[in-house]
């Protein structure tokens, strides 16, 4: 079972802002997302609304 999945993300820079987009499968509600802005860091935690049974290790993946 996956404990943490790093999402795909993109960061754009405009003249006055950074725009960050992330792909968050199994996230259907804004309340599932926590955002912590620190001095030089942005931490985003999103809890998926179902468990995913897929173990992936270096060179080996197992489903089920």
């Amino acid at each position: 079972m996956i404990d943490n999945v790093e999402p795909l993300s993109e960061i754009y820079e405009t003249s006055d802002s950074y725009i960050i987009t992330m792909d968050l499968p199994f996230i259907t509600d804004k309340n599932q997302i926590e955002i912590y802005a620190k001095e030089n860091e942005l931490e985003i935690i999103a809890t998926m609304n179902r468990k995913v049974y897929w173990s992936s290790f270096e060179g080996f993946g197992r489903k089920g």
Partner: protein
Amino acid sequence: MVVHLEYYDVDVVELEPLPPNLIAIEGLPDIGLVGVISSFHLIEKMHMKPVAYFKSVALPPIQSVKMGIIQEPMAAYSDGKLLIITSEVPVPASIVKNLSRTIADWLYEKRVSFAVSINGYPTQRRIEIQKPEVVGVSNSEKGLEILKEKGIKPLEEGYLAGIFAELLSLLKDRNIDAYAIIAESFPTYPDPGAAASALEALSKLLDMKIDVQELLEKADEIRLNLKDLSAKATQNKMEAVPSMYR
């Protein structure tokens, strides 16, 4: 910096004889994995079986396992009517040219009736789009008329880059009609919604019913499972494809 790119050969290994006049569908990893998602949806819904696979020393040393048996990750599947070419691994930049040529030669040898590539085109505002738009491209005047007849809007002007662009041209050289169906897609995320739109256009082109409801229902699972392939496909595309000045 000068990057020297080695080009590697690609071989086709056939598992069984194929009848002529199959309709070839190319859905190799590209923008939004629209082709891959569409291909595996068709393969699953139509209970297709592998009929050939592609080998190259440049492919990563990975094998899928299905029911205890290895399954080559870059393969062709068929149900006796369609011939779908797709991959569970990214296409390395070093085989894009040779893979395109190998596929074109193989489709010519197999006497397919025509070919369709399914792709995405990157759309920055995709998140605001409920139903991605689809455009079509053909490699012949006759094909363009068919696209219009089937209600698929032609891409008026632009440029194509990647295996499907190469295939359209190589198949034209071989007198095989070919089309590209291109759906608005997330630039770097797997996009089942774009695949659903592309399949709806494909169903018009082929005059066959394709149910996409299940695809949309499983969208989250698909996006999660294809996360790594999507990231690698995007990276490979950037390595393989130059910009074009217009």
